[in-house]
């Protein structure tokens, strides 16, 4: 088994009324060298819905909580950057005006 492995797994198809549902998952496997442990991260990817007419639709399973958390992290980083730049500009301005006064 490789050290880091990602794969898309497909589960058993379930019949719901006239529809067939096939779940799929994203799996990330990390194995420590020497078979001394590892990590498995298994998360839902999508549900493939097959109708009576045989047409398949893929319904992605979106992790809204994670998306919000990433957005907050990104917003926080951008906010920190903007505050830092604004603070730097303000400090430069005040230093220049002080020098001019002096």
């Amino acid at each position: 088994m490789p050290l880091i492995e990602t794969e898309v797994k497909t589960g058993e198809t379930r019949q719901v009324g006239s529809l067939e549902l096939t779940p799929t998952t994203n799996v990330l496997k990390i194995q420590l060298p020497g078979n001394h442990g590892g990590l498995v991260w298994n998360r839902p990817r999508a549900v493939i819905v097959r109708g009576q007419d045989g047409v398949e639709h893929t319904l992605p399973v979106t992790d809204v909580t994670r998306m919000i958390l990433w957005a907050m992290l990104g917003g926080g980083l951008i906010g920190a950057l903007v505050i830092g730049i604004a603070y730097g500009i303000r400090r430069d301005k005040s230093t220049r005006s002080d020098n001019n006064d002096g």
Partner: protein
Amino acid sequence: MTDEMNVKQSGETGLEAFQGTIEEFLLSADVGVVYGEPIQHEDTIIIPTAEVLSALGFGLGSGSGTSGEQEADKPSQGSGFGGGGGGKVLSRPVAVVVASPEGVRVEPVIDITKIALAALTAFGFMAGMMARMSSHKRAFPEIEE
């Protein structure tokens, strides 16, 4: 010699036990772990989904030694085997698949507590940073020449 054999045997038994644990651990990569059993309510079927994160680590060691200091004819022998490990399984609901006569839809599960905690942490960090910046400015007043 017997001690060494015992250590070898206990080491192999320990390894087998850990091998079994590893195999069970790898089962957490199965699709059935993420998608729960369908729950039927009248015409609607609900399938809960969750993300599963499992981590495991262990270590084993053995050793043996002899000491001829006490009795030169019959040196004392010793051997030992030890091992330890730990693991954690985390599971978090992600969404619910709702299949009804109208169709199939995926309803997300939003963890408000987690989002609120993250927001509070981020807000605290930013407030702390701003306070530190303003106090830094006050802490070093410019020296008038």
